């Protein structure tokens, strides 16, 4: 007996024909649905790339995410379950293709090749079934609450399981009927065959039935491929590839008619629509969303689902998502960071805000802040003439047009007008002086970067405010732009280059760390405090900077740094971003309350921050808790020798 498999053994012609017909129909259906999605994507606006596509980097990244499951493994249990299913499926699918090649093109599955092939596929099938089983348990018997216990998930997983199981059973029946001794290599099939023989079942008819069943289930798989979350098999690689064109949280300018008309799917960008198709509803986004955690109306997964609905039903997104949802977002990008495909939620919410801003239907707090930016150049509505009040008694150089300076210190509105913000500004200025840095400020020529306006959906105001800032920056010469505000930092670093202001932007934590490393600032006497560091979203997550602040704190003798569970890139928002500082949401808890509770649980007495907005927000939660909130610059200054 030759060591191989007779591919069409026991399969009557009509059944083979049915398989071909069935798969042609279902694959055709899947392709049709897929083309429908593609057509709908293409109706969207073309993408304005925030950075050029570097093919090498992009492909490497897709490979890492797809084949090494980098993001998926952030939840290790999910990672293993998905890995088993993924590689199991990949192997089985490749195996099926190999059989096809062997049968129709070049027969090659003979002898040892066949044995290795059989063994591998059996093991892969086993892995596949274990993965599917695990996934079922995670969803329907325990596991994290974020996973939807939907009928869709149940049927899809059961189908996958049934395909795997029927494949093994039919192999067992075949072996039981033909009894080739070398098939002992098909370990699972062999075991099943022994069961079939022991139970004295009619192996050949059983095989024929199972073969039909297996074929039918496989067709069902093709039919469901594009209409369930299985779709991600096709969309995920594309989404990951195109993701490389964008920066997390860097918003694209509004289209010229932005907000003037309902937010129909055509008003979204192609990538935004692709994202809607790519979502698998894993809920990782909602599990990390601060607004969701605080009991606000927002659920990021729901927003993506609604975007898909808007796309498929050709309905404006603003008829599906409510203002309460859209205004609850702090644009912290935790959802983007957690999503296996980095699907962006906040850009859709900002698009919606743009719509409501144009209609004038916005929260009064937001409206006041926007008008204040327009009329007074700062969202607080503080008298612009008081912009330099922070510097009282400090010898700070205010630059005149044409002046040149090493470091231009951009104070920002929080640093200029808010009482705790001013503390930070004074500390930074004093540290720069001690460190011998030649710096200057723009003084009254400074005005809001427009960041809050952009995130509140007032794109016209952002453009106007930004033009003012770009002009002010253009009047002086400097080597580096320093900011202690994470939001200003993000705007200058990621959004201003598109407006023609390209400059090297440093965050104060970075510059201060440089000074400490160069020995120009000394870590001074012990503070004797336990400190926890709250990473600003716009610094750690949007811009990947979380080391500098730690260097500063770790260098302080007598200071013990304890980390919160959610830190660095995975930090939890303070609630100030995206206009949250000005919008009063009555629903649910305050996000800052949750964050402060987390800080308190570390046992620290000092919460260090690196953004004035975080300081403002968290300080508001310290009443009666015996904790203080300080910017790292303040702590560093306190630690300087007298």
């Amino acid at each position, binding site marked *: 007996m030759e060591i191989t498999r007779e591919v069409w053994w026991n399969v009557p012609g009509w059944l083979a024909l049915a398989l071909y017909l069935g798969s042609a129909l279902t694959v055709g259906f899947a392709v049709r649905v897929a083309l429908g999605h593609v057509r709908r994507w293409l109706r969207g606006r073309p993408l304005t790339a925030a950075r050029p596509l570097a093919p090498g980097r992009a492909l490497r990244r897709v490979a890492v995410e797809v084949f090494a499951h980098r993001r998926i493994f952030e939840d290790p249990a999910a990672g293993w379950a998905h890995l088993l299913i993924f590689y199991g499926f990949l192997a089985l699918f490749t195996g099926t293709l190999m059989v096809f090649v062997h049968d129709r093109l070049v027969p090659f599955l003979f002898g040892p090749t066949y044995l290795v092939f059989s063994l591998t596929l059996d093991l892969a099938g086993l892995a596949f079934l274990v993965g599917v089983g695990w996934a079922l348990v995670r969803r329907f018997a325990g596991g994290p609450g974020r996973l939807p216990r939907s009928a869709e998930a149940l049927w899809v997983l059961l189908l996958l399981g049934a395909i795997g199981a029927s494949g093994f059973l039919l192999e067992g029946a075949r072996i039981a009927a033909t009894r080739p001794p070398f098939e002992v290599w098909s370990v699972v099939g062999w075991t099943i065959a022994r069961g079939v023989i022991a139970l004295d079942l009619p192996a050949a008819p059983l095989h024929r039935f199972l073969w039909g069943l297996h074929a039918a289930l496989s067709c069902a798989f093709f039919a469901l491929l594009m209409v369930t979350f299985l779709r991600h098999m096709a969309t995920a690689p594309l989404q990951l590839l195109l993701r490389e064109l964008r920066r997390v949280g860097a918003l694209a300018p509004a289209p010229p008619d932005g907000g003037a008309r309902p937010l129909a799917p055509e008003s979204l960008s192609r990538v935004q629509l692709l994202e809607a198709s790519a979502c698998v509803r894993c809920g990782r986004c909602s599990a990390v969303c601060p607004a969701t955690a605080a009991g606000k109306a927002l659920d990021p997964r729901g927003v993506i689902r609604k975007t898909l609905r808007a796309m498929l039903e050709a309905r404006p997104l603003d008829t599906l998502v409510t203002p309460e949802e859209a205004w609850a977002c702090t644009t912290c990008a935790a959802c983007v960071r957690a999503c296996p495909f980095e699907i962006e939620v906040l850009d859709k919410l900002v698009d919606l805000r743009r719509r409501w801003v144009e209609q004038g239907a916005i929260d009064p707090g937001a*409206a006041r802040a926007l008008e204040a930016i327009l009329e007074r150049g700062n969202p*607080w509505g503080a008298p612009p003439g008081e912009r330099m009040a922070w510097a009282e008694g400090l010898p700070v150089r205010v630059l005149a047009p044409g002046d040149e300076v090493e470091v231009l210190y951009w104070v920002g509105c929080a640093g200029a007008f808010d009482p*705790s913000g001013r503390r930070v500004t004074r500390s930074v200025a004093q540290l720069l002086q001690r460190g011998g840095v030649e710096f200057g400020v723009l003084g009254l020529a400074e005005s809001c970067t427009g960041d809050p306006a952009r995130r509140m959906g007032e794109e016209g105001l952002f453009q*106007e405010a930004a033009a003012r800032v770009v002009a002010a920056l253009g009047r002086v010469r400097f080597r580096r732009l320093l900011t202690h505000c994470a939001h200003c930092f993000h705007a200058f670093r990621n959004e201003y280059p598109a407006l023609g202001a390209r400059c090297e932007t440093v965050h104060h934590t970075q510059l201060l760390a440089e000074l400490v490393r160069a020995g120009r600032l000394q870590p001074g006497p012990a503070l004797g405090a336990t400190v926890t560091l709250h990473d600003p979203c716009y610094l750690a997550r949007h811009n990947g900077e979380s080391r500098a602040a730690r260097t500063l704190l770790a260098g302080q003798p007598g200071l013990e740094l304890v980390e919160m569970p959610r830190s660095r890139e995975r930090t939890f928002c303070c609630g100030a971003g995206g206009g949250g500082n000005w919008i009063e949401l009555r629903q649910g808890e305050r996000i800052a309350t949750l964050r402060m509770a987390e800080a308190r649980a570390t046992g620290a007495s000092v919460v260090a921050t690196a953004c004035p907005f975080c300081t403002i927000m968290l300080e508001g939660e310290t009443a009666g808790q015996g904790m203080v909130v300080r910017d790292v610059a303040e702590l560093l200054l306190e630690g300087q020798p007298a």
Partner: protein
Amino acid sequence: MKALVLLREVLDATLPLEPGDGQGPRVKGQEAIRVLNPADRAALEWACRLRQGEITALTVGPPEVEGILRLALARGASRAIRAWVGGMEGSDAPALARLLALAVDRLGPDLVLTGDRSLEGGTGLVPGLLAARLGWPHLDGATHLGRDGGRIVVRRRLERGWREEVEATPPVVVAVEAGSIEPRYVSVRVRREALARPLEVWGAAHLGVDVAAVKGWVRSEVASLDWPRPRPRRVTLPDARLTAGERMRRLMTAGPTPLRTGEGRLLEGGPREIAERLVRFLEERGLL
């Protein structure tokens, strides 16, 4: 129904002011900002809220004040007119009312809406004088406007917290309180579009007067302006432990005002306890 909204541009007096070199005050440390008078802004917003027919915005002033008319167009006015007759500079309330009456005659609105007083002059006389000239009802201190069929329903604030609701048959003059309505936000895009829309400019000829006559209307003028004696103003920084929202509120409103510096005290406790302490406080000072 045709509505005419009368607007004025004023100095933004919520900024810290100081005596200027000439007559008027100057904003400390920065350029003055001139804004639409808040009460007039409320009047315009009510006109838009009523949503009936044409809304004409009108202001009296030189070309520099056109900004507020642009804003009015952006906010929902369908037509904007700047009326100006040389010699009206520094005009007093009766002269202004007289000029406005001519404009009203020409336009023939059913409803004249304006703010009950301006941040700058603050006499609050113009609406009343205008109504008297026209022989129309004058409803001032309006905090709410509505319509009941052909009639205008106005809620008015009276002395000592009384309110009344007045129904009037148009034409009427209604003077609206500042802050009686939350104005909708008007985006920069809409504001920009308003820049392209036409403004009408009415001179003496349009109003059917001659310049010399108008000059004669102005019978009183401000001779000099005395600055209030400087009062040391203490800025109390809000307590850092309060929530951000609370701190914003304290910064933007006055918060509990100290009687004399350092003496302000916030009583906390049950109503009974607070009442007792208040009485004791007043008794100690011989006020009760």
